[in-house]
């Protein structure tokens, strides 16, 4: 198990070169090797969506991808979106609609939505429910998240 593989991954625009075990999960790599702890892990079997990141612009579950599979690819995490003083429109919409409570699942929702709204700037409510169906939230009942996505779509359209 001591065998390692050298990988080059670009995360949030910065290139990292690391020696990793082949079995290291991308989520653990991002969180523990790179210290980017905004990405969370909720189930480790690809169902809850908390660990969603973008890989070459597409939303993926980092708990079911090995770090070695990300070799040569570009990853974006929640840290790439906005800062407390300069929020991404989706983040702003989530705050305005009270779409987060404990906030643990939120980064996964945001990354799913960055990808989704990029392709579908004007979704219907039903489409929004489908779009976020792969992300679990235990606090909000999703009601306010759905409202936030509608608001985010408006905000992004007017940008």
């Amino acid at each position, binding site marked *: 198990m001591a065998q390692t593989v050298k990988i080059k991954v670009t995360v949030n625009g910065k290139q990292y070169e690391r020696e990793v075990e082949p079995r290291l999960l991308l989520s653990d790599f991002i969180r523990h090797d790179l210290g980017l702890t905004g990405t969370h892990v909720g189930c480790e*079997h*690809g*169902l809850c969506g908390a660990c969603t990141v973008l890989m070459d612009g597409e939303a993926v579950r980092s708990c*079911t991808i090995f770090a070695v599979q990300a070799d040569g690819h570009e990853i974006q995490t929640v840290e790439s979106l906005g800062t407390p003083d300069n929020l991404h429109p989706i983040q702003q919409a989530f705050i305005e609609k009270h779409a987060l409570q404990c906030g643990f699942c939120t980064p996964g929702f945001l990354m799913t939505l960055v990808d989704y709204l990029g392709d579908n700037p004007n979704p219907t409510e039903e489409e929004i429910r489908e779009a976020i169906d792969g992300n679990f939230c235990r606090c909000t009942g999703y009601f306010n998240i759905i409202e936030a996505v509608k608001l985010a779509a408006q905000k992004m359209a007017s940008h």
Partner: protein
Amino acid sequence: MKLEGEHVFNGPREAVWEMFYDPEVLASALPGTQKLEMVAENEYEGAMNVRIGPVSGSFTGKLVISDVVEPESCTLTVDGRGTPGFAKGVGRVQFIDQGDGTTLMKYEGEMNIGGALASVGQRMIDSVAKTMIRQAFEVLDKALEARLAAKASGSEVVDFKPPSETEFAAAVAKDMAGGLTKIPEVRLLMYIIPLVAVLVLLAVLFRGCSG
């Protein structure tokens, strides 16, 4: 979980009974088997490595055969344990001479599983077991055919090649619902469960005793 069913072997009862005599035939139907040894009269121990895809773990199994009425029936008790959990089964097997050169095998048994096998895999085990039974009989049918052919030609070499681990797992995966295979943990279980199911099933089918 209950297992029950029947299968017609295209061969006389004695030949079928004899086939179960041979641990090698049985081991051949079980990819990954490291050993299958007789440790006492009517008692066997087997070990298999589960090392397919992301799964690595070892299973050890113990098989006890009782109530032997040669060549008609026996009761089999199997106890398998390993890192992904345990499986325990009891089965009653009957061989009925159909008078036309074929043998009807009837089996009924019960299997209990625990550990990760149960907590993460229970829902799939019924359908997987069905696949496994079909697969196992296919293997055993071929083995019987090869044995009978060898006997007919007086040859000592039995021309029978068991399926490889990979072919075996691929066949199981094919039988499973396609959608679930995208999830690694499901994928993982789809390999473990069949293997354990085979272990237990073989015990149920298995006669291989000196009785």
